[in-house]
């Protein structure tokens, strides 16, 4: 039986934070969507291909992280595995929150190293736009360094299985769909509302930090009484649950 609360939470949190996505991934979405916009359904199809590519990359990474987490949790030598993964997840959430608040520059070194290679791959595709280019560009986009994805991956590792990990990252991908879709269909107008976007990013940052702190607290074993099944599970709610890894 799949626990749907985890990936739904991930989707909700990402949706809340999607003001950030408009800044990072929005460029790609716009580059692919804008010039060939006369027919809306075509722009829509292109955008869905982009999301499918990105979602596949996310799900792949999530499955990988989930498999790692499963191996760690199953290992008898790592009795601290579940707790360590929960802490990691909490820290990643707090880090993502701080990035959204503009207090921490996320993944700059990684981005700097990846950027030329990514640009070389996406450049010709964005120029020539062969059939299916959106899918491949989306796939490459999925490997862009992103604090939200890092938090999602930490959650995937804590989720205890490859399937749950992949699903959690699909949730993250789905969370970004509304904002990026709106951007692709309605163009740069959204992007120009700088102050509103910053305000939303701030609010989402605060939310992520709050969830991260809760996850950290549960990882540390505080508030043990609230860790029952009924509690609204944050992205990494399950590992703190003593029954989580016996599925």
């Amino acid at each position, binding site marked *: 039986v799949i626990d749907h609360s985890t990936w739904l939470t991930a989707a909700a949190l990402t949706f809340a934070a999607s003001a950030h996505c408009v800044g990072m991934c929005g460029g790609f979405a716009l580059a692919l969507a804008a010039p060939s916009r006369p027919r809306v359904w075509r722009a829509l199809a292109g955008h869905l291909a982009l999301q499918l*590519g990105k979602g*596949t*990359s996310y*799900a*792949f990474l999530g*499955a*990988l992280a*989930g*498999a790692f987490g*499963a*191996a760690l949790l199953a290992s008898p030598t790592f009795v601290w595995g579940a707790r360590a993964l929960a802490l990691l997840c909490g820290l990643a959430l707090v880090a993502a929150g701080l990035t959204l608040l503009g207090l921490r520059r996320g993944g700059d070194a990684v981005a700097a*190293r990846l950027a030329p*290679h990514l640009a*070389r*791959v996406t*450049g*010709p*595709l964005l*120029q*020539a736009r*062969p059939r*299916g*280019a959106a*899918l*491949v560009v989306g*796939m*490459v986009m999925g490997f862009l360094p992103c604090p939200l994805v890092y938090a999602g991956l930490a959650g995937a590792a804590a989720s205890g*299985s*490859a*399937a749950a990990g*992949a699903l959690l990252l699909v949730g993250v991908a789905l969370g970004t769909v509304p904002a990026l879709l709106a951007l692709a269909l309605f163009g740069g107008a959204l992007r120009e509302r700088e102050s509103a976007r910053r305000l939303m990013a701030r609010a989402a940052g605060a939310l992520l930090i709050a969830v991260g702190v809760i996850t950290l607290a549960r990882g540390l074993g505080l508030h043990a009484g609230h860790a029952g099944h009924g509690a609204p599970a944050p992205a990494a709610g399950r590992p703190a649950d003593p029954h989580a890894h016996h599925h």
Partner: protein
Amino acid sequence: MTTAAAPYVSYDTAGSAAFHAAPLPLCAHCGLLVAGARPRAGEALYCCTGCALAHRLTGGASGHGQATGMLMAVGIGAFLAMNVMMLSFVLYSGRGEADRAAGEAWVRWALLALATPALVLLGGPFVARGARRLRARQLDTDVLIVLGVGAAYALSASSVLRGTGPLYLDTAMGILLFVTLGRYLEAASRARATDALAALASRLPSEACRVRDGVEERVRLEALAAGDRVRVRPGERLPVDGVVLAGEAAVSEAEITGESVPVTKRPGDAVSACTLSLDGSLLVETRRTGAATTVARIARLVEEARAGRAPLGSLGDRVAAAFVPLVLALALVTCVWWTLRAGAGAGVMNALSVLLIACPCAIGIATPLAASVASGRAALHGVLVRSGETFERLARARRFFLDKTGTLTCGTPELVRLENAPGVDERELLAVAAALEAHSEHPLAAAVRDAAEARGIATREVTGFRAVAGRGVVGRVESGGAPREARAGSAAFVAGAPATAEPGTSRVHVSLDGAWLGTLTLRDRVRPSALAAVRALGRRGVEVELLSGDQPEAVATFAAALPGLRATGALLPEEKLRCVEASAARGELPVMVGDGINDAPALSGAAVGVTLESGTDLAREVADVTILGGDLRRLPWLVALACATLRTARFNLFWAFAYNVIGLGLAVQGRLHPLFGAVAMVASSLLVVLHSQHLARLTLPAVSESA
């Protein structure tokens, strides 16, 4: 630039300077010889998938079609492969759940349906290249990859069709993805081969001014023959090799020798094509044209040396060459053993599983990733390395050959001594010289101006300035309160100047109103970093030798300043090449460091050619390494980095194979589980990625990072 034709170029033997394509199988991206390939006209050839990808991405191949076509093939292949791997992981971690069993058959068919097109898209290039390798009777990583992936696919497909049995599709996809990524990384750090040879030919004027019976006419270069007289005006490049009949001019041979100080050519002197007449008009009798000229001969030597360079298979390839026969033997033994024990079906299955687990996923990135990180770090410090293989060659090099002019020296002269006539102030001498030279383009003039500036001497006005071709300059300069006629130039131009000369220096004599004022001696400056570099190389235990085309006396004087350096002078380009080739024949993997066109044959014949930013276009084209900024201490630093890179690559390969050797043991016993393949794949690849990163931060001994 159209690079559809093979990049091999040579002079037409018919005597024209036109270049034409010859069917030598060289990679269009990196210029390496492609073994076992049969080039077809009008079709670009690549030594590997990475080169094809990188060449098309960096715009080397004309047209968007090819670049995007290949990108889409790899992209869609990667998309499918990722889905296969993801679904496989989900299958593994969902093991033992009863409610999954029903869905599993469906998932297995889906996996096969996704993997088949991915196999074609990603694996196609490797099959083509592996087949080419086999034709050339070589075993390398491509053969290993095709065997491993093929076996994994065959085994998995039969499992799906039979409805039972293990699936290794994720391993197959992982290998293909990682190797494609590795090949791309490798080629991306490789510079694109440009056609500096063609550029060199374009330097030659297409027309020349022929003089017949006192009448000048412009003719095409091809129309010239030995014995024809040719007029060369100031600022023109010489079209032919020949001898000066009349006229005098300072001729810059910088393009050919790297020597920046022009040489004065007088009647009777030999001149070569492609050199530049700076200030005078020359009448030249043609001796050699087209393919016979010095510059064409050098170009041909470069091509021959390049094609004849012994290929050094990469570390991974050498390991694979030894590993493949072993694995094939093991697979055969396994097949026979299991056929006898449990029937032909089990025999084939277990033999296939031996083949599939023998190919480490990390083999594709073990060396390229180390080289990529290392070349990234080198680039950060102003050292451009053309290919990953260069690091391996550098680390194993036993002998370094260094060119003198422009390499160990700056190639620009510097004032070293002032001789003044009795009663003449040194500052007055320099002030007069600098005033005259302020109007001259001559490199010696710049050195005189710099010296005056360094001593804080104010510039003076000059009137009636005039340059006398190949001799010097004359003008009226304020001195002692009145303008007087001043001259600066050669001993023949300046009355009363001492006629003594010393090897390796240039002298500028100065006179005022016909009376000798003094003489300035200038010499090519030794690079400040040269001594430190030669010493550091010596400490690494490699032989360092000086190869120069300069006069033996000048070379000997120079070498005395750098202790422990063996030096040979008066070498022709082909003699430099011969020195390098003799060293290569002794198995020393020689490194050549030079910057002139005359160094180009030796640079391309050496295991590693190193040039400086100031090098000629041709030198930069054929060299594997370009040091920006001209700090020679980067050379021993790079060798240290290369050694660290080779160590890292060895470590990477060792662990890549180590996991799979355990797998081989399991496969022979028929106990290999798909999960083992997946874990080995992920674990060894991750180890390789993490371990390669340490090259970026490693402290390198002996040479400071700040330079």
